[in-house]
């Protein structure tokens, strides 16, 4: 039997390679729809990334690539509500983040849209979306930058970074093990983590509620007149860096840590033989603002900016 011609073998190899590459290449997706300027957009992804950007068109556009094992991208639009969902086959739903490849979605929405994003391991980035924004990931990082008035963000294992520029914004951030960074201009902020550190830097803080178990809490900014700020953790440090002309009343307690201030007030023992220390003092005329700081064994520092 004679050998097959070299050209035939070469053609077969090229055809096989082409087919393999085509089969392995991620499936590209593109969807568009005309929507209201204040459309509600819901997005769900498993692994990979979701990036949502605001633009000056009344249109939603999705572009991206589906990960291996993903069934399809569902895109539903009735003009007022848009749902974008990465659909995973039912057989892959046990720990799907480990069983499907990364899906990357780039989504454009009207600047005034409200968006809600949930992912398992996919990172979330939202920029220049000024309606309400809700972002939740199990293991991915979460990032927001823009002028939304209501911002909610959460992640169990990922870091969270918020940069809110709107005056009067309400920011609610909840982490577990990742770090939290919130930068704001003029806002009310609630930020909690269990073991991750929380850093909040402004700007004028209207209301503040900061909690952690073993993570550190750091606040740098102005305290608005009439503000109520609460800082509480178990054993991380708590540090406030505030202007020298701050007007506020402070009530600080640590059960076995220490209290240090750069305003001439130090912690004093609550009673003999007890490690508990407290410091109560008022800066300026108080301004109607109240700051409560409580930690079990952490160190509290109130520093002058």
């Amino acid at each position, binding site marked *: 039997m004679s050998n097959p011609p070299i050209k035939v073998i070469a053609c077969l190899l090229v055809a096989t390679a082409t087919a393999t590459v085509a089969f392995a290449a991620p499936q590209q997706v593109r969807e568009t729809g005309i929507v209201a300027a204040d459309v509600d957009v819901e997005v769900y992804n498993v692994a990979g990334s979701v990036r949502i950007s605001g633009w000056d068109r009344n249109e939603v556009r999705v572009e991206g690539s589906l990960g291996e094992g993903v069934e399809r991208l569902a895109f539903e639009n009735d003009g007022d509500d848009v749902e974008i969902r990465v659909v995973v086959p039912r057989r892959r739903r046990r720990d799907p983040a*480990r069983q499907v490849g990364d899906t990357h979605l780039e989504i454009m929405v009207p600047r005034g849209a409200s968006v809600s994003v949930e992912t398992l391991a996919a990172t979330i980035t939202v920029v220049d979306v000024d309606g309400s924004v809700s972002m939740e990931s199990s293991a991915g990082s979460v990032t927001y930058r823009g002028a939304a008035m209501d911002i909610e963000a959460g992640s169990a294992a990922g870091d969270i970074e918020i940069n809110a520029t709107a005056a009067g914004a309400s920011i609610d951030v909840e982490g*577990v093990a990742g770090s939290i960074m919130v930068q704001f201009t003029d806002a009310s902020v609630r930020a909690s983590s269990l*073991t991750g550190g929380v850093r909040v830097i402004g700007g004028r803080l209207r209301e503040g509620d900061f909690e952690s178990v*073993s993570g550190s809490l750091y606040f740098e900014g102005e305290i608005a007149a009439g503000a109520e700020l609460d800082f509480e953790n178990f054993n991380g440090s708590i540090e406030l860096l505030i202007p020298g002309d701050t007007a506020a009343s402070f009530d600080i307690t640590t059960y076995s840590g220490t209290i240090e201030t750069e305003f001439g007030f130090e912690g004093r023992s609550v009673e003999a033989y007890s490690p508990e220390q407290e410091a109560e003092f008022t800066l300026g005329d108080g301004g109607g603002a109240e700051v409560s700081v409580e930690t079990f*064994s952490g160190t509290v520092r109130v520093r002058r900016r």
Partner: protein
Amino acid sequence: MSDAPSEERLNDYVDGLLSEHEAREVEAALAASAEARATVEFLRSLRARSEQLPDAIEPGRDLWPGIAERMVPAPLASVVAEPTTGIVGDEVTPHRTWWPSLDGFQWATLGAAAMLLMVASSSLTVWVLSLPGNESVAGVPTVVSGGEGIRPAEVSYALEIEQLMRVLYENRDAVDPDTVSTIETNLRVIDRAIDRVREALQEDPANPGLVRMLTKNYQHKVQLLQRANHIIELS
């Protein structure tokens, strides 16, 4: 009184904290509500069991940490926990294994044992906090119970935690192991914080800040488990 009394109200009734007039109102409501009667019966049995618990059980040597490490599902291990050593920075180490490979009966047995431990643990705390010298603690308002004592709040948390953990065990395979590890590590941190605050409360039982901190840590635990269960729903 036409409306069924709340669980907190029934707790107070069982604990004998209501005035005569209030108690009569609850009894009138009990006559009309089988569900309320069942709740009272449960609370009384819980109280009776907690009163039978000793102050402490001292084994010849501490076998439990080793047993727990090998047998108890990871998040549960954080509840039954090791002896308190405190939390300092990164001292908390992740568990060596995720979910042991157990059959249904073993899971059920461990689950039942775990629930018993949790109830017993909470009951013991209830009992300790209800000792004559500790009324001041019991009467301190807590964040979540709107002026009610720590005792019903702690029992309530124990029951809620039990339910949430059960859902977590039953669906553990749906969650990414790294996320399970994160949840487990954080549960252990919270449990150690709870232990430390409880120790401090033994030294200073009238300290409202410590009671509030204890409540807050229970809240953290419930919220973490709710988040874990939400992840399961997403999966």
